[in-house]
């Protein structure tokens, strides 16, 4: 099979407007992946499926990854010459940079016809709050159907053009997305809140304390 670099080059040659980025995997597995831009993802996926040399007809695994917002500290070292004529001093300057988070969806593609793989592709949302839409690849590979519903359910990625985007593992009335890193358990999962014991303890952690009873005259 072609290397990921060759696949990237062919994708860029075929779709000059698309942005395809090679993500290297530093671990021993060395499974490098391609990050596709969301606007062209559907066309790129169709190309990967139908190209005669690749024929990635089998999308094995679809999963989400949550990358929360992060504060990254950059350290820049500058050498300041000593006015007294000594050796130059090295001054460290720390700047805290805000790295915006995103939700990522990872697809593992194999070819059943040519028996090779995996080719790993990734899509990223713009942020984690309001711009979480990505194109669905279910029209390309039917196996994405349930797995994209699972990513929607547990991570909150909204797949456009998905034929049946509903919650799949959690119940329909559930509000949050439990696989996100900043997910907080509700105090109680029961329909009727039972305000005692462990539930009450958890509620106290974030609810304001009740007003103290007025002192009797």
């Amino acid at each position, binding site marked *: 099979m072609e290397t990921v670099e060759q696949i990237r080059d062919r994708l860029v040659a075929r779709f000059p407007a698309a942005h395809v980025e090679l993500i290297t*995997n*530093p*671990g*021993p*597995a060395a*499974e490098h992946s391609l990050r596709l831009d969301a606007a062209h993802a559907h066309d790129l996926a169709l190309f990967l499926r139908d190209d005669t040399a690749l024929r990635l*007809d*089998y*999308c*094995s*695994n679809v*999963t989400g*990854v949550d990358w929360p917002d992060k504060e990254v500290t950059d350290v820049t070292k500058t050498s300041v010459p000593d006015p007294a004529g000594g050796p130059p001093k090295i001054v460290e300057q720390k700047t805290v940079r805000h790295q915006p988070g995103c939700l990522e969806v*990872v697809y*593992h593609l194999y070819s*059943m016809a040519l*028996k090779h793989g*995996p080719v*790993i592709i990734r899509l990223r949302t713009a942020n984690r709050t309001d711009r979480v839409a990505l194109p669905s690849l279910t029209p390309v*590979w*039917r*196996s994405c*159907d*349930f*797995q994209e519903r699972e990513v929607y359910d*547990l991570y909150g990625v909204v797949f456009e053009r998905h034929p049946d985007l509903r*919650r*799949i*593992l*959690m*119940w329909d009335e559930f509000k949050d997305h*439990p*696989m996100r890193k900043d*997910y907080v358990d509700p105090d109680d999962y029961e329909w009727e809140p039972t305000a005692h014991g462990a539930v009450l303890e958890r509620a106290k952690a974030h609810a304001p304390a009740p007003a103290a009873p007025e002192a009797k005259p």
Partner: protein
Amino acid sequence: MSVSDLSSFTSLPGPTVRQVHDQFHGDLLEISMGPQHPSTHGVFRMVATLDGEQIVKLKPVFGYLHRNHEKIAENTTYLGSMPYTDRLDYLCSMSTNWAYALAVEKLAGQAVPDRAQYLRVIMAELTRLVNHSCLVGFLFNDLGTSFTPLLYAFREREKILDLFESLSGSRMMCNYQRFGGCRVDPSPEWLATAQKLVANFPRFLDEYERLLTGNEIMLARTQGVGRLDPAHAVSAGLTGPLLRASGVDYDIRKVDGYGFYPRFDFRVPLGAHGDTYDRYMMRILEMRESIKILAQAFKDLPAGPIMDPKAKIRGFRPKPGEAYGRLEGPKGELGFYLISDGGPNPYRYRVRPPSFVNLTLLEEMCLGHTIADSVVILGSIDIVLGEVDR
């Protein structure tokens, strides 16, 4: 009303189950099978819309056993979730353990000694025997032969579970694999017992097939039921015996050659029709191939350590990176996707369960069949809800 012009049909929200479409045809009836239904193999629900007795629409509903296994695993160490993987596919804990160990070993670049590789093959193939004999037993239960064939199958399964118990301490929750090897070395007596059991297993298969394979009711109920064409099966990501029953030659033991499988001589059985009967025969034929693999493994099992001496048990922290490890489980492709950020816990831990993805085409397989057939079709897919819901 034919099946094809049902695209505009949507069920009303609320408690209504009947919808009158036209006065000449009669009603469509929406029924909910499950979650507490013995034929659904766990807590699984099928919302079927029936025209008479024919299924015109069917939606699987699951999640009743969801406990967010992946989140729990992200909050514990790598080794800490090894016993929990037993609970995914609780019939096949040995191969689920191996799939997880395989992914972690790929993530950390961990080697495995030869004896452990052979032991893994032995355990995985014994598990395949357990799973497939259970499946054919349950399939006959779904066909209505209440419990006799199932108990024949369970008699053999129990013998293998006894072996697992004497080796690992537990019949079903084995927790046997470790990163870089296995936990317990089997004694020569254990190996002799296992070898004898495997040598006798074809007798059970012959007996079972003589009783049931040619049975007229069985043929009438399974042949041509739930047919699946290969193009759909590939696109829907079906794997395992379900895919090979449709004639697609894809067995990860051959394709990836993980473990020591390239050293073994075995065939991959393929179906021709993709119906329920072929799926049943796939299981029987795969059990015969597993017996061949097991006989070779017992013959060639080398002496030596069962754990890589360099393997780290405590303070196991793989370098940052990611890995996707997969193997041919008894139900299909079982994969684990891990991302490490260098810490003691995985940053991302994902299970790719075969049962979950294999349910994708349940509706297509059931359309046009009766509600009684949907039970058999679901039985032939072979799902375990512990793995579907995670």
